[in-house]
């Protein structure tokens, strides 16, 4: 064992930098350069500008409380009754109080109707709407939005809970810039202690989602206002006509708003906690759905962002291009890299793979530690997550990559998202026919 480790390190020192770069180009040029160096640079600039941002933020908050607009909090869902009481109570604690709470029951077949009617009667829900026949998440959200009265519409998921100032924090950005059409909230993993799968997702959320969205928002290429916690200007929703059929409707509406010229920003201080899938099997199901939407929406439905027409915007081009490049193309490239290694460096595989794992693990540690300095909210001490960091190589590098590859194949060749039971067939069939 000791001999093998000695041999491994002697080999590294003997190979030389140019050959190392040739073997590990994928890591050096994409993973390390894009996801560490580039993001770190942006984060540093973002941090340096914090004092100015704070002043603007304070002004925006003042304007918000002078105007005190009505905010419509809409919660569409099916069979979510069990979560609604908790959610209603968490909303009662909000620092911003001028909001109407609308729950839309999308054809639930459990106690949801009974629970929500009781909560409405007791004043915990302002408006309860029910579709006796399930229409899908988009139609439920559209129903809530149609009968809401607020100047700003906040879309929540029923199974999430919110910081007591979450509503206030997510609507302040609308007073920073009139061009802002939507604001995405910061999502933390609530059940990170419940299983290994949930813990790994918590690390992923804090890196890729929280920190990743700070940088993309700062660069103006933020592309996904999460359905779990997102705020929309009514005027902007009116212009796009609300949500289109999913799955992936939150990413879709973000692109639609971007195409109309609205700015989309991420608000790291507006915190929502969600429960993530606790088993890898459930996670696969969720991620297959998420990943298919890249093909369905970015590559197909919104491919016009790449066309040099009258509505062309460089930021939209970069936003979609970056998303497609780093998720879709690099995923394909990763398989090419794998083949490259197997074909050209067969004899070195015993060295290449451990070294790759070593590199990625070191990178993960470095990223997690350094980025922690920029994270505004953490759901636990970083020490808690350290023992799990070595597993992120397998989680990110193999598990998620494999799921993503399967999703891309399924959607690209078979348009499987239109068959997803997440959305009722009656509307998916039309969406497929119309190519949306």
């Amino acid at each position, binding site marked *: 064992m000791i001999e093998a480790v000695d041999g491994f390190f002697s080999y590294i020192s003997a190979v030389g930098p140019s050959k190392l770069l040739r073997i590990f180009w994928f890591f050096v040029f994409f993973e390390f350069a894009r996801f560490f160096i580039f993001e770190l640079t942006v984060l540093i600039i973002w941090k340096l500008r914090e004092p100015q941002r704070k002043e603007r933020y304070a002004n925006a908050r003042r304007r918000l409380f002078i105007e005190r607009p009505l905010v419509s909090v809409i919660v569409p869902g099916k069979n979510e009754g069990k979560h609604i009481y908790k959610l209603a109570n968490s909303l009662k604690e909000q620092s911003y109080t001028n909001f109407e709470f609308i729950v839309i029951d999308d054809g639930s077949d459990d106690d949801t109707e009974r629970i929500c009617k009781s909560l409405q009667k007791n004043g915990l829900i302002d408006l309860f*709407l029910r579709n006796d026949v399930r229409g899908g998440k*988009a139609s*439920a959200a559209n129903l809530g939005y149609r009968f809401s009265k607020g100047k700003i519409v906040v879309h929540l998921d029923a199974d999430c809970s919110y910081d007591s100032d979450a509503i206030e924090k997510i609507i302040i950005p609308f007073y920073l810039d009139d061009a802002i059409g939507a604001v995405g909230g910061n999502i933390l993993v609530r059940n990170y202690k419940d299983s290994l799968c949930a813990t790994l997702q918590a690390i992923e959320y804090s890196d890729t989602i929280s920190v990743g969205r700070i940088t993309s928002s700062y660069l103006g290429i933020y592309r996904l206002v999460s359905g779990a916690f997102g705020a929309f200007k009514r005027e902007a929703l009116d212009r796009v006509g609300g949500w289109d059929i999913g799955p992936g409707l939150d990413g879709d509406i973000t692109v639609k708003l971007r195409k109309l010229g609205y700015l989309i920003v991420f608000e790291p201080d507006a915190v929502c906690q969600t429960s993530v899938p606790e088993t890898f099997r459930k996670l696969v199901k969720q991620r297959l759905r998420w990943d298919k939407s890249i093909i369905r929406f970015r590559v197909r439905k919104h491919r016009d962002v790449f066309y040099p027409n009258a509505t062309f915007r460089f930021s939209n081009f970069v936003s979609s291009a970056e998303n497609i490049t780093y998720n879709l193309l690099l995923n394909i490239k990763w398989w090419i890299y794998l083949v490259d290694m197997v074909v050209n460096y067969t004899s070195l595989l015993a060295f290449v793979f451990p070294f790759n794992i070593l590199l990625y693990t070191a990178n993960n540690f470095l990223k997690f530690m350094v980025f922690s300095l920029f994270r505004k909210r953490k759901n636990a001490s970083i020490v808690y997550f350290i023992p799990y960091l070595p597993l992120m190589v397998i989680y990110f590098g193999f598990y998620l990559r494999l799921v993503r590859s399967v999703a891309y194949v399924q959607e690209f060749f078979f348009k499987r998202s239109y068959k997803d039971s997440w959305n009722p067939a009656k509307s998916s069939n039309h969406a497929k026919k119309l190519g949306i």
Partner: protein
Amino acid sequence: MEKTLANNKVEFHDNVLTCFGKTFFYFESFSSLKIDDLEKYDAIIIDAFDIEFTRIIIKKFRSHAGMEFYLKPLFLINNKATEDPYIKELSDGIIISFDQIPETINDINQINMKITRLETSPSSSFEIQVFKKALNYMFTREINTLKPITDINSTIGYCYPVLSVNFDAFEEGKVLEILEWAEKEHLIWPDFQDRVYLCSNCKGGHLSFREICPNCDSANMRSEDLVHHFPCGYIGAISDFKNNIDTVLNCPKCSKNLRHIGVDYDKPSVINHCQNCNDVFQDYLVKAKCIQCKTDTDVQFLISKDINLYKLTKKGRNSAVGGIYTSDYELNHEIAGTLDFKTFSTMMHYEQERTKANVTLTSNLVVFYFENIFDLYKIVSKSKEKSLLGEFVTIIRDNITPADFICINNPSIISICVNDVAFENANLMVLKITDMIEELVRDNFEKFEIAVVSHVALLSKSQSFDKQIQTIIKELVEKT
């Protein structure tokens, strides 16, 4: 006017008819004549040319406090008003002409004969007084049921003519209270017919049910279908899809025509708009406005009352001639070692929980029904009733353990909870108690045989105690 009718059998003179020695007063119009002046007549004949007139006259007699008035035989002539079930119920027959008067003589004699059998001791309470009147009437007319009839004049929409006649129309709620009391006293058994909802304020049943806005209580609402357009996911009121040019529905989001329900759109629900406050909601409130007192009440707060057809029990039938013996709630305080029914019921609920928690435990519910105890009470003076029951309780107490408890439901029913004793042993114990009570009565009241009926049941773990004991008592009383 004076004339002789029906083969010289009926003589008619100044509204007074005479036939076979019986005198009849013929009521044909409102007159200054007071009802009290009519005591001397054997029967009254009312000209039922008008329903209102007939009702008023009948009510004057039947609501009278004096037995000689409220039990007076009343016959109707002129069939116009006889369609009214209220009048029908409270009259003793219809004659086509005075020639038929001789045919009523037998009925009058029957009624008068039965009147002589009635018990006439003063009633101890209002309920007893009113119900005794009804029982007396039913006994003399051989009626065994109190049948509800729909009545527009009654505030609850129903009336029991024999009882209701004692009250004004707006007091019909009191009739239900008396019936509930009588049911509790096992004088009558209910048979469900209908259910009415009454105003929580005045107990009136004339209610106007309205769908109203939950925000402002206005009934001025507009209801619309919700339409869901499948291809674009838009969903809104159908008016969103209408245009001013044609009848085609167009989606306001994607401008497409809606062609085929179920294929490209559906109507998953409805939405209501309040025209008064502009509020939007799916579920309107239903409130009931009382026409009588104008109170607007949520339907959930209305008082629900069952309208039953009541059959007289044996106790009820006997009460007309034997008097009404009611449960004396003070008995429990005066007879040591007994509980009132409410406390007994609560303890039995605990007992049920105890036996549920430990499957090895069993409890027995024993009910004694002393079928003819009222005949015995008539023999002993009122002051001795409690001593007699006290003696029964002592016998029972001597045969059960100190942990068992006794309840005097009413003077004819005693219930016991026998804990942790096998069912067979409980039965043996009941037989022993029955023998001892029968012996006690035989020894002390010469030739009187008390009829003791009993029932032993395992305390149910699934059925509610109240329901279980109710069923047992019903079976015992009906069996006799």
